[in-house]
């Protein structure tokens, strides 16, 4: 058998010979149509994509300067994707016809409408030229031309120039995502700006708070750190807004304040106990207590326990009296120590030195425990103070944002109006001591902690109208003006209704109900949330001079006191 190797051209030629003129033309047109559609799609899709890609690039560029939240990014990118898919579907669904392909190939190959005419004759065989020899000849000629056409050459697969724009935009978009800008968030890693980001100062406060809370973990409140972190995390993720975060921080602070040790009371108890043990035998103990040095107190108590064996009866009696006197201390925070003292005094009365030593050692241990408790309480107080500071920072930012929103919402507010408001604010600042101006007046002029309470309240509104010139930040620094804005404070007082006996117009008795003249509020005062820290509450509630400053104040007044001879 003889095999003949057919060239591709020969095979194509034989295949064409086996096909009718119509099949040749239709097949050629289908090929042309596919190629035209492919090139058109490439051109249109890349062009459309280059336009569409501008959106995420511009969006990402905007994100660099003002980071968007994840939900915003998802929504925008989602809408963008829907638009892109819709555009792609629309363009892909646009299919050209074979008649269009015939016209196109006629134009491209300069066939002077030969293929188009032939295709029309083939598509409309029932026309006036039906079974015309001329039509057959025309179709035959067109088929010959179609078979000779080099579709690849006429319609090469072309890469549209816009593809480079698409590539460039994609590279730019990726580059923007991976740019080293600090505010950048890489969308490729599904990262986006948190709903709320802490400033470095706030982050520092948060870290300090956590450290303090770790120190205070021994107060059986280990969950506080997790709660604090959860609040901040929720805030950053946008699960809660700033107001809710402030509320939760307040709750956390209240939780932290539960079971607070009254430090002043402890110090007072120590002072009282120091006076009780002022005897010569227990002088060192008294001095250590008066100095509030609990470590030294514990050491002196242990020394005293060791000295019991070497004491003479008089000394023993003096120690017993001192301990007996100290055991009568009624300060609640000193009850444990007082019991130890009482136990030691009782043991000394029973001539049981060993038991007395044990009791004193136990007292030393209790003193050390008290010291530990006081240190942890100080850490708690500090943590509470830091939470308060964090709250202040967040509240200040919230107010600033509200102020910006109001300024944007009321751009028509002129400088003249602001100037008038500023004058009012100055006048109100001058009248800061006037009780009618509320707390904020005093806070603004004095810059004390009391200003915090006035920020969201009515005084805050006054400060707003007073302009930045009159406001100060909560720290009281006069160098840092603060825009205090917000709704005026409303006292949610709901007076109780009381029944009164009255007489109506007809003269018959009638029960009336009106607001109580005694003006008793239904709201429980205990439910009013305070923003003061425990330390601040201690100071304010005790209404006494802090023990640390007693000596200083005494010296001050002694220094300014006029000599007796001059009175």
């Amino acid at each position: 058998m003889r095999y003949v190797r057919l060239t591709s051209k020969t095979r194509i030629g034989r295949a064409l010979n086996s096909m009718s003129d119509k099949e040749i033309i239709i097949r050629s047109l289908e090929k042309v149509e596919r190629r035209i559609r492919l090139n058109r799609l490439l051109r249109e899709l890349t062009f459309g994509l280059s336009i569409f890609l501008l959106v995420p690039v511009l969006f990402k560029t905007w994100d660099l300067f003002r980071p968007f939240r994840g939900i915003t990014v998802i929504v925008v990118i989602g809408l963008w994707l829907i638009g892109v898919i819709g555009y792609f579907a629309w363009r892909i669904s646009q299919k050209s016809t074979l008649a269009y392909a015939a016209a196109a190939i006629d134009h491209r190959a300069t066939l002077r409408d030969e293929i188009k005419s032939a295709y029309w004759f083939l598509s409309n065989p029932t026309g006036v030229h039906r079974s015309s020899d001329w039509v057959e000849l025309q179709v035959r000629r067109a088929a010959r031309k179609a078979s000779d056409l080099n579709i690849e050459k006429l319609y090469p697969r072309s890469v549209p120039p816009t593809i480079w724009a698409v590539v460039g935009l994609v590279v730019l978009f990726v580059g923007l995502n991976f740019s080293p800008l600090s505010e950048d968030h890489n969308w490729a890693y599904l990262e986006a700006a948190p709903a709320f980001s802490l400033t470095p100062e706030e982050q520092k406060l948060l870290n300090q708070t956590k450290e303090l809370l770790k120190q205070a973990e021994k107060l059986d409140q280990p969950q506080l750190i997790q709660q604090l972190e959860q609040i901040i995390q929720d805030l950053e993720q946008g699960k809660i807004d700033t107001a809710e975060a402030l509320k939760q921080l307040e709750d956390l602070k209240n939780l932290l304040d539960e079971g607070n040790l009254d430090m002043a009371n402890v110090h007072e108890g120590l002072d009282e106990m120091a006076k009780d043990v002022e005897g010569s035998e227990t002088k060192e103990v008294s001095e250590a207590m008066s100095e509030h040095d609990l470590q030294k107190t514990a050491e002196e108590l242990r020394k005293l326990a060791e000295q019991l064996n070497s004491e003479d009866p008089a000394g023993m009696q003096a120690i017993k009296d001192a301990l007996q006197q100290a055991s009568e201390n009624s300060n609640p925070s000193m009850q444990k120590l007082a019991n130890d003292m009482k136990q030691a005094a009782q043991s000394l009365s029973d001539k049981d030195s060993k038991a007395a030593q044990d009791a004193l050692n136990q007292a030393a241990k209790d003193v050390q425990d008290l010291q530990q408790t006081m240190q942890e309480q100080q850490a708690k107080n500090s943590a509470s103070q830091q939470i308060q500071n964090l709250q202040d920072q967040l509240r200040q930012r919230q107010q600033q944002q509200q102020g910006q929103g109001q300024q944007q919402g009321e751009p028509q507010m002129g400088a003249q109006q602001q100037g008038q408001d500023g004058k009012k604010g100055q006048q109100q600042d001058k009248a800061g001591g006037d009780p009618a101006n509320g707390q904020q007046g005093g806070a603004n002029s004095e810059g004390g902690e009391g200003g915090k309470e006035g920020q969201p309240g009515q005084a805050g509104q006054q400060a707003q109208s007073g302009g930045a010139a009159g406001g100060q930040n909560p720290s009281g620094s006069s160098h840092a003006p603060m825009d205090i804005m917000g709704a005026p404070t409303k006292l949610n007082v709901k007076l109780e209704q009381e029944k009164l006996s009255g007489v109506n117009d007809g003269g018959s008795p009638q029960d009336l109900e009106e607001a109580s003249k005694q003006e008793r509020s239904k709201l429980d005062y205990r439910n009013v949330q305070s923003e003061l820290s425990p330390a601040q509450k201690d100071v304010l509630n005790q209404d006494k001079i802090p023990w640390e400053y007693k000596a200083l104040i005494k010296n001050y007044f002694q220094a300014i006191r006029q000599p007796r001879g001059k009175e």
Partner: protein
Amino acid sequence: MSTAIDQQVETFQNQFKAVRDEVSKMIVGYGEIIDGVIMSLLAHGHVLLEGVPGLGKTKLVSTLSDVMHLKFSRIQFTPDLMPADITGTNVVQEGTAGSKVLQFQPGPIFANIVLADEVNRATPKTQSALLEAMEETTVTVGKKTYKLDTPFFVLATQNPLEMEGTYPLPEAQLDRFFMKLKVDYPTVESLHTIMNRTTRLEEPKVDRIADKEQILEMRKTVRAVPIARPVQDYAIRIMLGTHPRPPHANATTMRYVRYGASPRGAQALVVGGKIRALLNNRVHVSCEDIRSVAFGALRHRVLLNFEGEAERIDTDTILKSILESTPEPS
């Protein structure tokens, strides 16, 4: 069968080329005019030649008749020319028995090629005597209609300069002309050739190339050429584009045109396109063929409005804008 058609097309081309070449022996530098005239003859139409005197219009027609061996007559249109001077009239004749009978004496229109020289100088009444002959190929005198010999081909000329005392052809008359060809001055080179041929002792002579039967056969060949609907649609859209009405009219048409071409304009486009296709060895009409005959076929069918007349807008300008604004079928 296709071989026969191919042969038919080839014969058409050869005869056309032969006639053109033979006429070109006498007429120099007017290739397009000659083509237009022959095309009009083969399209069963008539031609209006517009040009200043002395450009060889009459010579062209007489030469064409000589080449095709057709009966030729010339009518010089003057204001006192009467319709009967064209169509002929019944005259009293003495019969064999001495009786008087009315006998029709055919006018010069009874020819194959009629040259209506300076047709716009005759009165409209006389001009209209050509209407029936040009469209129906018949002449009615009295109560009797006479059939004209085929092919019947009217070639009218008019002088665009001396317009005083002339009667512009009415729209109906203009619409009868298949083409209006503008005869411009020949080029310098052509003038040299004309001088060389006409100022010597021997004048060029033309041979008989075709006869009546061949022309009629060529006419049949033209009519047999198929045209696809999209191309025909293109011709129709061009024709409709000459009308100052949407949606086919463009801004130029809307502004300057009063009336556009009649369906005869589209017919002229299609038939002219067929001839062009045959001349290009094609058996189908292309849009390019339609465009190539558009100026000659439509320029006399576009009637300008007052603004167009006032601004001396050339109808060719309007046709050019129409061709540019009419997209090819896709």
